[in-house]
């Protein structure tokens, strides 16, 4: 079913219609997680651990229960104790037991903010006051808050009962949940023969996705033991699966209705409050809504892993890479899974490397259980690799784009994990970067301000997952099409999915009305994440639209009493190939079609889209006296496969760049030694404001994916990968300083300048 997209003249794809859900979102009508109000609804609140690591000796909820306006109190005793089972399918890892413990602690709290109890009350303030009356007796333990502490010989152990997997060996009493290795060729030979070998180790602080909407969970548990959940999530089916595990209920007893979602970036894949609201509802038989505060969001929801990454690259005298080694140690947070396999897949993804070895460690620490954050683990490893590459170019005097082109990964190149790339567009991105106005422009290295300027470039990769999606179409009597799908819409995916159906049907985008529906109303659809939605759910819409055309032709054949193969369909008109009198618009065929309404549905389970690459160029201006860094010019170049709705593709590129810039310069979990995040507010977490960023230039390159009829690749994740190294490289260009720690904040710059002097 693969076409040659670049030769097609699309009518809908590549245009910029107003998104279907836009009107609700600019008028305040759109309902997000916290906006739901159900009759008789109670408000939930949770008690959280003030300690990063402690045993729970006892919990006394009696005072809270006695309070006026309190309807129910729960602890982990109200949840089933689950065994240590790996979850159902290969897209999900982690054990059920950990999933459940992260919702509410049983014997031990593993991070500050870990939930220990829940309350349902008549209103928010009463619920908060009740939480204060819950008394928990803790035995405080020493926390480990970074990979060095966690991997130390005498480290305090988070999971005494958990077996780490160290290259296949089962190991007890370790904070290294997994050590994996990938190896190809002989790196010792490679490094031996190398003309130049550069090694750098970067150290990155934990960061947060920073979505504006705090997590919520609203539930009703009825007398038939059916649970209805309303929540803001990247995957309603993922919520259904997770809640079914934690509550030990069949999935069919659970119906998840996704609300509009106020940002996720990976962090709205895990569940937090949904099972708590459900249990509180079971106890009260009333709807219960629970909402996190901003501090809760920082303290207890999905950060992106911090950690240390060491990369060593050797090149020959011609500037060809001979060998590469990576040692990757990432913080999983309280429960295993720091995306180390993704890290291994991404670390050398931009290069053709004949021999390599990768050691990666999944390390548990006393911080909130990490969640995916936009290209999980790829920015961390790219920082190391792209810094080493920049250093090589500096030392040898290579042009950084020419060096990358000389070693570029392209179709047929073996990836770090072994398999060969199919069609990818990194080379085209690098060539476009070289040809860009930005790269060709002079960097005013002595601006009037007296500050120093520098330019940096870096590349990055994300592999774009595929997986399952379902779409239903229904032709309405007015000739327009209703599309229902299960991919929650974080940033315009309703539009990009509807546009693909509209393209097939040859009708305007506005004539396909998309709705994101609950888990009872559509086939299983995997999360909006991994840059899969426009690709996979779009593919399902494409298939469903073709099936709808088959239906249209079939019903027309019945109506006209001619054979199907005499009928053709294009651009909203069905007609006989032979009899020019026989012709119907969609509206005409939709009006009482023989044998029932015209509907179709399709589902897919797709392979990866083939990977997306991004190349970013950053110009900085740095005040040497204060260490203040301003981004003055920024260009993001990316192979987007095919831009269905170019405005929203640009938006992904700009948004990813902005998050990466924040990560590079200021964002971090600033932890006390006892494991408390001290800057758990927007004030001190310091995400970029509108005044901190320039316009972000975008150059979209379209090298179609082989896996999608329109050549779509995921576009959401690659753009967060290059910014951190691009900025590090620009700082080095401006000041001759190689900063290897994020954030590269002002004090680090001034300290490094002093050391240099």
């Amino acid at each position: 079913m693969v076409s040659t997209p670049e030769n097609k003249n699309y009518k809908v794809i590549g245009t910029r219609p107003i998104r279907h859900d836009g009107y609700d979102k600019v008028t305040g009508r759109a309902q997000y997680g916290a906006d739901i109000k159900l009759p008789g609804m109670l408000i939930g609140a949770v008690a959280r651990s003030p300690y990063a690591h402690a045993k729970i000796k006892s919990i006394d909820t009696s005072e809270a229960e006695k309070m006026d306006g309190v309807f129910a109190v729960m602890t982990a005793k109200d949840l089933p104790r689950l065994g240590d089972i790996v979850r159902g399918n290969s897209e999900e890892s982690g054990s059920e037991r950990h999933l459940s413990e992260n919702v509410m602690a049983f014997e031990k709290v593993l991070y500050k903010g870990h939930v220990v109890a829940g309350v349902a009350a008549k209103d928010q303030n009463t619920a908060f006051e009740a939480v204060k009356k819950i008394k928990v007796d803790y035995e405080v333990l020493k926390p480990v808050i970074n990979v060095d502490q966690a991997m130390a010989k005498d480290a305090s152990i988070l999971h005494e009962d958990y077996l780490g997997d160290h290259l296949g060996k089962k190991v007890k009493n370790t904070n290294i949940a997994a050590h994996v290795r990938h190896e190809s060729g002989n790196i010792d030979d490679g490094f031996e023969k190398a003309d130049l070998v550069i090694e750098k180790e970067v150290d990155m602080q934990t960061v947060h996705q920073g979505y504006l909407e705090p997590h919520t969970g609203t539930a009703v548990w009825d007398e038939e033991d059916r649970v209805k959940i309303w929540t803001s999530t990247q995957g309603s089916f993922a919520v259904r699966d997770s809640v079914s595990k934690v509550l030990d209920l069949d999935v069919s007893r659970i119906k998840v209705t996704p609300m509009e979602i106020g940002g996720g970036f990976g962090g709205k894949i895990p569940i937090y409050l949904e099972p708590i609201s459900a249990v509180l509802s079971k106890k009260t038989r009333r709807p219960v809504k629970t909402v996190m505060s901003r501090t809760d969001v920082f303290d207890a929801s999905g950060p992106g892993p911090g950690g240390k990454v060491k990369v060593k690259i050797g090149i020959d005298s011609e500037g060809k890479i001979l060998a590469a080694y990576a040692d990757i140690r990432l913080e999983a947070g309280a429960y295993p899974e720091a995306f180390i396999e993704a890290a291994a897949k991404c670390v050398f993804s931009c290069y053709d490397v004949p021999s390599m070895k990768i050691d990666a460690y999944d390390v548990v620490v006393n911080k909130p259980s990490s969640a995916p954050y936009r290209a999980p683990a790829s920015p961390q490893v790219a920082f190391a690799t792209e810094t080493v590459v920049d250093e090589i170019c500096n030392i040898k005097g290579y042009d950084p784009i020419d060096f990358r082109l000389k070693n570029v990964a392209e179709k047929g190149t073996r990836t770090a994990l072994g398999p060969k790339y199919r069609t990818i567009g990194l080379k085209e991105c690098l060539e476009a970067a070289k040809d860009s106005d930005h790269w060709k422009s002079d960097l005013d290295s002595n601006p009037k301000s007296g500050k120093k300027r520098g330019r940096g470039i870096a590349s990055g990769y994300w592999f774009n997952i595929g997986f399952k999606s379902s779409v239903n179409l229904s032709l309405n009597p007015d000739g327009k099409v209703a599309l229902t799908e299960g991919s929650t819409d974080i940033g315009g995916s309703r539009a990009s999915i509807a546009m693909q159906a509209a393209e097939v049907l040859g009708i305007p985008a506005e004539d396909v009305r998309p709705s994101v529906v609950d888990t009872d109303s559509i086939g299983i659809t995997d999360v909006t994440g991994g840059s899969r939605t426009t690709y996979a759910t779009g593919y399902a819409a494409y298939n469903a639209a073709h099936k709808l055309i088959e239906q249209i032709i079939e019903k027309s054949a019945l109506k006209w009493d001619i054979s199907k193969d005499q009928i053709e369909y294009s651009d909203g008109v069905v007609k006989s190939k032979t009899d020019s009198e026989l012709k119907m618009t969609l509206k005409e065929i939709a009006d009482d079609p023989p044998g029932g309404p015209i509907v179709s549905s399709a589902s897919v389970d797709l392979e990866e889209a083939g990977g997306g690459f991004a190349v970013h160029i950053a110009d900085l201006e740095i005040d040497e006296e204060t260490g203040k860094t301003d981004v003055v010019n920024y260009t993001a170049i990316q192979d987007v496969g095919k831009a269905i709705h170019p405005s929203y593709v640009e938006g992904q590129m700009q948004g990813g760049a902005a998050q990466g810039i924040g990560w590079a310069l200021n964002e971090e979990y600033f932890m006390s030694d006892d494991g408390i995040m001290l800057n758990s507010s927007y004030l001190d977490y310091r995400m970029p404001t509108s005044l901190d960023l320039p316009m972000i230039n975008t150059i979209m390159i379209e090298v179609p994916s082989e896996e999608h009829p329109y050549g779509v690749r995921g576009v959401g994740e690659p753009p967060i990968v290059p910014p951190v190294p691009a900025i590090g490289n620009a700082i080095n260009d401006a000041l001759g300083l190689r900063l290897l720690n994020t954030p590269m904040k002002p004090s680090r710059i001034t300290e490094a300048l002093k050391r240099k002097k």
Partner: protein
Amino acid sequence: MHPFNYYAPETVNEAIEILNKYGDKAKCLAGGTDVLVQARGEKFELDAIVDIKKIPQLTKLEWTDSHLIVGAATPCHVLYEDSKVCEVFPGIVDSAFLIGGIQIQSRASLGGNLCNASPSADAICSLIVHEVICEIAGPKGTREIPVEDMCTGPGKNALTNGEFLVSLKIPLKNSEFSASYERFIPRNEMDIAVAAVASSIELSNGKVSSCRVALAAVGPTPIFAKEASELLVGKEPTDENIRKVSEKAKDIASPIADMRGTIEHRKDLIEVLTRRTIEKALERAGG
């Protein structure tokens, strides 16, 4: 949050009465940009909140022969949107324009910023270098204190039970006076100062007749760097002389290390910002 009642007195005496009755269980509400956050964060438990914005004196902006009188609850935007204030007191406007974003500036006041007594407060250094007098009302009547005596510790001020700040009196100076405030933040907006300096300069025949330098976020309270300030008095404002002031200011700074900055960085910043603010004040004073 502990539930509290709301009072909106219309006279100073009424306000004193309520504040006196509730003692430390009551707080004044001006812009609310600090007090409501702190009440929610359970920094204290309130039984009453006293909205002082309905007392006419508290939101005024009045020019007398000797002073500009700013009501303690006058929001920041009133200052920077007043062309005369901008012309006469650009240093005060620097602060008013930096506190929070536009939303915050609609509500936050210099008086509130002062009473909140944060070591990193954006307004206090500017008030210090302008030799501002605080007019305080209380059960025992009205008293006036210099602004540098107002902050007694982090989050602590010199007000006693039943007292509240009514207005800030900014003395008018000659035309060769000016001031400047600059803070260092890692972002360009919406941050708390890592370190900040306000400087004021008065010139007379090419020499500095008066100089005041105040430092923020480098001690338990904003600091009037008296010894540094004196170094420039009677001297020509040469680079060398300014450098001596900056170095002294750096010596005086005694910051802590926290999530917002390191000790070393803060001290270095004080030196840089002292120089920059003096230069800016000189430029404004026409020097």
